[in-house]
């Protein structure tokens, strides 16, 4: 039962990830990416990490994908530029690199982890994550807010420009 479910979900994850790359319409690619994220969320649940699964859905499938969609929408889709992969040589180099990375990581991971290791039900729920986050990892937690603050200021600085010389007088606030 569990193995079948895993196989199904894993297959769906890989298949939709492939569709992300193969698809010609970027909007479809984004939607397939959502599917991949949902499949990953199910895998997290099966690994006994419901909180991580919830984050995967809320943050990735929810927020980040909205962002991706906006990026796609910002581009001029009606006159799509022909995708230039720089000829077939470069495409093959890319393919070979990806295949190489896959082989190396397979070789590295093979036999490294015990597939029969018992689930640790305490690992991935909100309570245990919170306990670690707010005690041992309290400094990284606070630095996280600084990272987010930098992101806020950064994106506003880059995207919200003053319109030419309106602000020359200074202190328009």
């Amino acid at each position, binding site marked *: 039962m569990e193995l079948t479910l895993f196989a199904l979900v894993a297959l769906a994850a890989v298949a939709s990830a492939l569709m992300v790359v193969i698809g010609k319409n970027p909007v479809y690619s984004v939607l397939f990416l959502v599917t991949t994220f949902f499949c990953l969320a199910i895998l997290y649940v099966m690994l006994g990490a419901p909180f991580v699964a919830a984050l995967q859905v809320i943050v990735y499938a929810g927020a980040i994908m909205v962002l991706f969609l906006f990026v796609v929408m910002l581009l001029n889709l009606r006159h799509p530029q022909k995708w230039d992969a720089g000829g077939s040589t470069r495409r093959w180099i890319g393919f070979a690199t990806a295949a190489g990375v896959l082989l*190396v*990581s397979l*070789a*590295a*991971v*093979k036999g*490294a*982890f015990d597939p029969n290791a018992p689930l640790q039900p305490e690992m991935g729920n909100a309570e245990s994550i919170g306990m670690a986050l707010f*005690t*041992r*990892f*309290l*400094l*990284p937690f606070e*630095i*996280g807010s*600084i*990272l987010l*603050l*930098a*992101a806020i*200021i*950064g*994106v*506003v*600085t*880059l995207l919200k*420009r*003053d*319109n*030419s*010389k*309106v*602000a*020359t007088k*200074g*202190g*328009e*606030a």
Partner: protein
Amino acid sequence: MFFNLSDLFAIAPEICLLVLAAVVLKTELFFTRKPTALQGITMAGLLVTMGVTVMTASEFPTGAFNGMIAADGFTLFLKVVLLGVALLTTLMSREYFDDAAFRHGEYYALLLLTTIGMMTLAAATDLVTLFLGVETMSVGLYVLAGLRHDRPRSSEASLKYLLLGAFASGFLLYGMALLYGSTGGKTNFAEIAAAISRFGDETPKVLLAGVGLILIGLLFKVAAFPFHFWSPDVYQGSPTPVTAFMSAGPKAAAIAATIRLMGWALPDLAAVWGPLLWVVAALTMTVGNIIAISQKDIKRMLAYSSISHAGYLLLAVLAAGDQSIRDLAASGMLFYLAAYYLMNLGAFAVAILVNRARDNGDYHLDDYQGMAAQKPMYALAMTVFMISLAGIPPTAGFFGKLFVFSAAIKAGYVWLVAIAVLNSVVSAFYYLRIVVLMYMKPQTSPAGSMRSPATAVLIGFCAVAIVVLGLIPGGIRNLANSGGSSVAIPPPTVAEVSTK
């Protein structure tokens, strides 16, 4: 107990910078948009922070915040250097960004938040803080690189840096995940080392793959070969004060994090990453120097030169793999970084002035022709920076190289040091070419005004500091030594302390 109030001393500089960033940001929003006022606040705040950093300096034998960050002499030295980088960048920024619509407050706030990221990175003794430091630093840098809305090159630099940087962060994170998984859930450097030493000779392959991926991520941040391709374009396209900041601060922070990670967490794997870094270091300095020779743009030339300096700095990382040499290697690196930021920021400041006088938007080397006749003081300062970058005495750059190379020889890397010395000779060619241009060639085009008091102060300060450090390196050398000795042996882990 997971928190002591005294832990706050360890992050006092960061707290100061955060408050300062908030003050600058709010001042611009609510009170004034005067560039001079905002720059004044930032510089005063940075000086106060420097004072606080030195005054709150206290040794935490086991690090602060459950071993998340270190609070030792090494970190202290780096924090002061990084604050110096931020201070000098602030000094040269106001006159560079003269566009009326430019929001100086946001710029300084981002600069300060980036500095917090660099400090976190330099102090990190845990994979989590290491990653957060890298990210906080990078997010700020991506934005800073793209601040010149009027120049497509600037946007290109920002986008390139963002895409490649995000990719490198992915490698870093993937590597950390593998390391975490294969050491049984350890993130603290010293705990990782303990877990690895338990493996004995049978190091799992996943762990090695993880180390490799982490190295890729970090080498990207220091712009080492073959992960250096972004740096010339990004350096060229970014606003020049940002380029100066970028070439000094993040490089220092990332190389410091590398030396600590390699020395504290992965000393048992030195046989694995040693040869790898050997090749990377040799290629980094050689490739950087050789390509630098053919550059016509001073920003690109300094970008390639900073790649080669990353190669010299990797020598220190290599030497630090040997625990008996680690204090020497680390102290050599600290001295080198202190010298490097002075000469690099100084050189970029001169580049800003020369570019201003020409007012044609590019940074062509020919602009330096005959500069000595018209601006003897600036030409003299530039000569000092170039001589120091080349590593010729009596300058700080010479002693930086001397200390790093001698540590590397003690660790047995004679051939690599030979390559490095050869490289220094090659680099002297393109550094001194600028000196030749300034002193021996007639002026081609009429130079405009180079009046820019703040930048002039900066150039003077850097030049004098480099010469003083080159004549009497003792004081800083002693500080660097005490910093170096503090990373020699990783502190006991929290778990070890609590079992006692």
